[in-house]
């Protein structure tokens, strides 16, 4: 059981040969975590990123309490009002409060970012683990599928899938998930290949540990840090793609307050009501900056050699 708990700790570069945990290792683990946390806290940009991401999550969770108006409520007495104290981001063509819509948009950004990256990881990491662990024919087949998938530009494939499925939230999730797994597979397969060279893998195999147990308890924790970094850096791309597809009318459609759809909504009015498109765009940008700098910080903290560059 202690083995299982340790295996799920996400400790990278572990290279002990035994399958049991020594007291020394128990003290090493928190100290390494502390080091990583320390490096992350010292990195001011990473702190800024964490702050932005935290603010986004809180906004998404407490949107109904933060937004002063109902995001879909129309007010014909306040059409296309410029930003004011009453409506900090102005109102749109139907008199809806842009600030409230942007606040509720955070829910979609968080949902889409987490769910899509979750699906991508599930598919991509599983295939990467299998390819790297078994090698041979299995690896060749998986990697050829990745080659084929990587040959179709992601934006084009996602657009074709989402559009052909008729647009909407679920097609959007399917489309982007079916495109994004490829990167995870490549990354994990490469890392697993490296871990497989370690002696403790042979030792564990020799001790009769089953394939599934070896993959989940010994290999996955050793490749977890790069998966975490890659996933953090993938979330902003997913948010940008989802917004882009919604902007084109192939994702979340109006009146849902998704940021890309909000920008599309103000596109026709850009010359006389600039605020309708500008604020949702700023929200996307700040969110993406947050995840990008947090991802960079995580990478530097988990792999200090990279931070020199």
């Amino acid at each position: 059981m202690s083995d299982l708990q340790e295996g799920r700790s996400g400790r990278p570069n572990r290279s002990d040969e035994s399958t049991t945990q020594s007291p020394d290792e128990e003290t090493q683990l928190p100290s390494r975590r502390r080091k990583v946390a320390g490096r992350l806290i010292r990195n001011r940009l990473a702190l800024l990123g964490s702050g932005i991401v935290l603010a986004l999550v809180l906004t998404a969770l407490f949107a109904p309490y933060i937004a002063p108006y109902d995001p879909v409520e129309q007010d014909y007495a306040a059409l296309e009002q410029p930003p004011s104290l009453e409506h900090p981001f102005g109102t749109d063509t139907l008199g809806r409060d842009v600030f409230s819509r942007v606040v509720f948009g955070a829910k979609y950004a968080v949902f889409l970012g987490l769910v899509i990256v979750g699906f991508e990881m599930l598919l991509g990491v599983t295939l990467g683990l299998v390819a790297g662990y078994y090698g041979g024919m299995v690896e060749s087949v998986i990697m050829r599928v990745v080659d084929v998938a990587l040959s179709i530009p992601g934006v084009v494939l996602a657009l074709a899938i989402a559009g052909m499925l008729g647009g909407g939230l679920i097609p959007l999730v399917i489309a982007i998930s079916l495109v994004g797994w490829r990167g995870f597979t490549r990354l994990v397969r490469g890392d697993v290949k490296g871990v497989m060279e370690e002696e403790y893998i042979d030792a564990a195999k020799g001790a009769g540990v089953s394939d599934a147990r070896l993959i989940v308890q010994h290999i996955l924790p050793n490749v977890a840090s790069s998966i975490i970094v890659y996933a953090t850096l993938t979330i902003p791309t997913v948010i940008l793609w989802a917004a882009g597809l919604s902007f084109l009318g192939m994702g979340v459609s109006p009146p849902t307050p998704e940021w890309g759809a909000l920008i599309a909504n103000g596109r026709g009015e850009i010359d006389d009501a600039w605020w309708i498109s500008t604020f949702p765009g700023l929200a996307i940008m700040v969110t993406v900056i947050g995840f990008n700098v947090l991802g960079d910080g995580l990478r530097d903290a988990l792999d200090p050699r990279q931070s020199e560059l």
Partner: protein
Amino acid sequence: MLKYIIRRLLVMVPVVLGVTVVISTLIYLSPGNPAQIALGQNANPEAVARLEQQMGLNKPPHLRYVDWLTQALQGNLGRSLETGTPVTDLIVERLPATLELAFASLAIMLVIALPLGVVSAVRQYSWVDNASMLFAIFWLSMPSFWLALILLLLFAVHWDFFPISGRAGALLSVTALSYLVLPAIANGARRAGLLTRMMRSSMLEILNKDYIRTAKGKGIGQRSVIYSHGMRNAMIPIVTLLGLQVPSLISSSVIVEVVFAWPGMGRLLVDAVLRRDYPVVQGVTLMYAVIVIVANLLVDIAYSYLDPQISYD
């Protein structure tokens, strides 16, 4: 070298075939009846059935795929359900505009990113470095379609420096160039951010090498060390990255093309997807994939020229 190129070309064949299978499966699984779409919602059911027969829609999917592939290998990608125009003609008509936009975006990327990346590396941790890294993150995080709208608002609507949208034919005049500027910036900005960071880290890696220290120790001027010894070597990974960026710039222009009504392949694809014009979607997606595959091949060949350590075997 020739053997290497031939082997790479042979490896491309199953990948291209795989791509055609993926695209055909996607089209097959998509809802809607192409014959009904071609004839309209109020079409006579008998006419629809006749067209289905003609288009081979009642055949099993694998036979439909073989039929399509046989025709595609002869350069026939079918006809648009909407207009009846051959898909190949549509692609040939739109491809130059897309390539023009991609290369203009690439030029903007290079002009911004190379100097910034080099200066950042040479003056690591200075205010110039911090400012360029902030600049890089700023552009990297900006949605291209939103930037396109902001550029339109400021430079076309508000100040009237550039035309709002469209394209004025091939790049032979200042007018034609003026149509290209804003879409190229919108498409290239995000990748300029990415390239600035890559150029900085590539340059830093080289500047920390022993031979740079030796060159400095020999008393060679800093300018010469940076340009002759540093940049030349730092460019090897950058050239690869640039090669891989071209297909990426071509495909990322899809949304920018829509915002600026740029008559390229991206806009053709978006219109086709929205109208469920299956043959056009199938043909254009295949064309994008072929561009990626060919670009990857060219990068590999260029790389093996640039770096003599790479073996062809």
